[in-house]
């Protein structure tokens, strides 16, 4: 056990037993505009007269930039400016970077003195159209002096390896080993040590819409307005203002719907900065929209790329004791989010199993590749895969059934603090497993498997029982350091609710707009639940970062919890004022009133009531009908801070609570492998998830199918392949294979 005192259990919410809207699979409020082709995505907002920027990308993985000649490009009719990396470095500062020691691996919107991966931008051309901007790129003459690339992450750690960043003096951007619990004791007492070396290759979100930004710098006011499909970490956008060398209160970043993200639009500042820099330089609105090759080679959001050496200490009866994880993670040329990916892993490092001790060693390595960012799970999903591989291997070595070894180790008492310090608030893993086994017809398939084997066919049955953490805390980005530079703790989310004079409700959101999740539907359902209205009658608007309330946006599976907290808080404030107003209008004591069906009424006297509309019209228009201290209007906001974060211990033997809500899932795929061709056919796929309270079950089911499709892609088809020379071989959808409807099976989806 660790030396720290455990904090109290996370907050338990008591939900109303009967709900009108929460839990209903209503049609999404966002959809009509998308169905009509009126989504208003970033590319749709480009107006005539807007100039277009295009970025010249490096064909070399590692090379010094000897010279850049832009004269011919600048001379082309219709070209307004060409800005090289060196010029950009005078116009802008380094990009916002949460990584370790950023001063020694500075990251800029364009490469300055050398390029560090294929696809890194070296210059940007601004022209009347995208066509002309790309013509201009063809006229830029860059002289490169190629350097030997470093591609393999293990080779990158060897003495004498070429350095991605000379000033850093090493390609190891970060290394740390954490010990949680009595690791050596548990391994010494174990009957069997199961060992494996595992490799998780690089894939990524690849939403069908790339990242883009439309920037409009006003020299009269010094204000820069940017529309972009990547507004998140709203409260941290002052860092982008610093990059652009403008005051934070002169930057307004406004959110627009995004055509998918899966993490890859999380805090993407490079297109924003490029467009902003160009607009300021030419004095006109400028749009920069990544094309597909930009996005695949230069999006800064490739997924995890890990080598694992793992040891699982087991007793002969199948009991798990301890876990040693040694991972090398290939971050590419920069490390913008530090090793937060491994913070995600540590939130659920032991999965759903009773494992007493964990040693976690991570080495974050820099290579000549596009850098890592976020991809669905942010590194936690890789830990899930690694752990389930180890559990299956242990089952084979101990001759145990894969179901049985999991049952023998499930955590069954909650709240449960895992060795890293994080908490599992609740769960019922046996029930999820039972439901998944039934839904998947597990016994049937085991029989089919045996029958097929006798016929020389090969059917495999997969089984995973895994965790899905929810609501990240900022601590996971800095508990890696004994003396963190910026031990921030705020990751809030805000909502403003306004009841107009007719009783209509508008909710204002302050972070990322819609990006395929459905924040508007979710908020509308929650508002409808609180105020007894129709969710399709709730209006949702967004406020950009300027003059907006504190907000963070999606990421770390937090949106529903955080927006729900903000809606609940704003509702409480509005209802308190409405109650007081109703009591005044009804000449009654507030304690004698109750909220029933969209209004306040005297308990037991339903005819003595004021609807929300009755109250709202009075508060908006009849100030003198109320006591002097009552202000006009009916509007309020809630800044909802993280509901439950605890600090790491000074010795980092306990990292505190940083992901306080833990979902659980069991998936059972059945596949047949053609051993001659290697072809895999999915015969059946069942998934059961326990997510707690559901707002819109069909939306969740859609995300389970979609997430599973991406998992199938990662397992069978998708990979960012860099060859030994550092060239990106899969830089189009001809080579980076996204599963089509023929590769994704029909899923059986069960409730938890």
């Amino acid at each position, binding site marked *: 056990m660790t030396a720290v005192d455990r904090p109290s259990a996370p907050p338990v919410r008591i939900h109303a037993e009967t709900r009108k809207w929460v839990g209903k699979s209503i049609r999404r409020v966002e959809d009509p505009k998308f169905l009509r082709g009126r989504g208003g995505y970033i590319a749709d907002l480009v107006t005539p007269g807007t100039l277009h920027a295009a970025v010249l990308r490096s064909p070399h993985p590692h090379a010094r930039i000897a010279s850049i000649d832009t004269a011919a490009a600048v001379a082309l009719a219709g070209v307004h400016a060409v800005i090289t990396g060196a010029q950009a470095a005078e116009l802008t500062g380094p990009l916002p970077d949460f990584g370790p020691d950023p001063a020694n691996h500075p990251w800029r919107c364009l490469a300055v003195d050398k390029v560090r991966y294929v696809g890194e931008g070296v210059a940007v051309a601004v022209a009347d159209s995208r066509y002309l901007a790309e013509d201009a790129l063809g006229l830029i003459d860059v002289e490169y002096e190629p350097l030997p690339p470093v591609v393999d992450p293990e080779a990158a750690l060897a003495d004498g390896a070429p350095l991605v960043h000379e000033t850093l003096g090493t390609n190891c951007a970060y290394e740390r080993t954490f010990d949680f619990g009595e690791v050596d004791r548990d391994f010494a007492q174990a009957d069997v040590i199961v060992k494996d070396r595992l490799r998780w290759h690089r894939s990524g979100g690849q939403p*069908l819409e790339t990242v883009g930004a439309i920037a409009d710098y006003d020299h009269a006011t010094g204000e820069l307005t940017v529309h972009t499909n990547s507004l998140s970490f709203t409260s941290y956008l002052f860092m982008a203002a610093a990059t652009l060398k403008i005051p934070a209160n002169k930057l307004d970043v406004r959110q627009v719907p995004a055509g*998918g993200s899966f993490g890859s639009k999380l805090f993407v500042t490079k297109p924003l900065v490029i467009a902003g820099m160009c607009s300021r330089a030419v004095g006109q609105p400028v749009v920069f929209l990544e094309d597909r090759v930009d996005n695949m080679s230069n999006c800064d959001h490739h997924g995890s790329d890990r080598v694992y050496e793992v040891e699982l200490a087991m007793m002969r009866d199948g009991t798990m004791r301890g876990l040693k994880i040694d991972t090398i993670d290939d971050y590419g040329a920069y490390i913008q989010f530090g090793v937060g990916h491994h913070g995600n892993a540590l939130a659920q490092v032991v999965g759903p199993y009773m494992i007493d001790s964990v040693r976690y060693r991570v080495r974050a390595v820099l290579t000549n590749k596009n850098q890592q960012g976020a991809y669905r799970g942010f590194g936690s999903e890789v830990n899930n895969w690694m752990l389930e591989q180890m559990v299956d291997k242990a089952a084979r070595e101990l001759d145990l059934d894969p179901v049985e070894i999991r049952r023998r180790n499930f955590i069954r008492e909650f709240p449960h603090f895992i060795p890293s310090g994080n908490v599992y608030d609740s769960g019922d893993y046996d029930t999820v497993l039972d439901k998944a086994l039934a839904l998947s017809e597990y016994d049937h398939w085991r029989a089919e498997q045996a029958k097929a084997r006798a016929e020389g066919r090969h059917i495999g049955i997969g089984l995973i029982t895994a965790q899905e953490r929810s609501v990240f805390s900022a601590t996971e980005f800095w508990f890696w350091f004994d003396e963190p530079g910026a031990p921030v703790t705020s990751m809030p989310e805000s909502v403003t609710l306004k009841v107009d004079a007719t009783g209509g409700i508008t909710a204002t959101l302050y972070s990322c707009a819609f*990006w395929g999740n459905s924040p508007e539907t979710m908020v509308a359902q929650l508002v409808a639940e609180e105020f007894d209205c129709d969710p399709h009658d709730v209006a949702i608007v967004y406020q950009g970062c300027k003059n907006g309330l504190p907000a963070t946006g999606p990421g770390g599976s937090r949106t529903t919890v955080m927006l729900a907290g903000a809606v609940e808080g704003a509702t409480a404030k509005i209802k308190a004022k409405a109650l007081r107003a109703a009591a005044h209008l009804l000449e009654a004591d507030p304690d004698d009133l109750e909220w029933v069906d969209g209004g306040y009424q005297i308990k037991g006297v339903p005819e003595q009531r004021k609807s929300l509309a009755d109250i709202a019209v009075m508060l908006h228009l009849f100030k003198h009908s109320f006591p002097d201290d009552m202000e006009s209007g009916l509007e309020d906001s809630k800044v909802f801070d993280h509901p439950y974060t605890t600090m790491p211990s000074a010795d980092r033997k306990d990292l505190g609570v940083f992901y306080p809500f833990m979902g659980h899932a069991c998936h059972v795929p059945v596949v047949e492998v053609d051993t001659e061709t290697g072809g895999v056919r999915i015969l059946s796929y069942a998934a059961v998830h326990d997510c707690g309270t559901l707002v819109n079950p069909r939306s969740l089911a*859609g995300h389970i199918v979609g997430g599973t499709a991406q998992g199938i892609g990662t397992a069978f088809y998708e990979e960012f392949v860099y060859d030994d020379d550092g060239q990106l071989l899969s830089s189009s959808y001809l080579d980076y294979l996204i599963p*089509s*409807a023929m590769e*994704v099976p029909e899923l059986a989806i069960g409730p938890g």
Partner: protein
Amino acid sequence: MTEKHRITVTVNGRAHRAEVEPRTLLVDFLRDELGLKGTHIGCEHGVCGTCTVLLDGRSIRSCITFAVQADQAQIRTVEGLASGPDLHPLQDEFWNKQGLQCGYCTPGMLMRACEILEQNPDPTPEQVREGIASNLCRCTGYQFITEAVVAAAGRMRDEQPWDPTRPTAATTVSEERP
């Protein structure tokens, strides 16, 4: 400057005359010249199907088609599906079944689904899957899209006979651009 070509393209029943550079892509012509932003750009190399429109009744990738290749053609885009306040049965069933998440592939998927149902008004789910395999969706895993297309097919056969070649009220006006 490259010489421009005069083309006439009929989009959702309206004839448009325009002068375009030979290299202008059809998707850019639709979006930038005609203001029809519903046809989206995804991969820009003809793989993902996001830019799918119907050209003389057949689905094509407008990101790898030049506007001049559409001269004298009839084009249908997502903007031609709904009739005023009334959604097309495919749109309505995509809404009912949550056959979309981010919505970016949706216009292309809807146009491809139109073509599938015009060729086979009563497809099995397997036939729908094979049909929409031309178009990538990164969000949904295709399950609810398949359900939506099958459901719309049923409505279009039984409840709301719908002739895709018949101009709707919204598309009968002939408008010529100078």
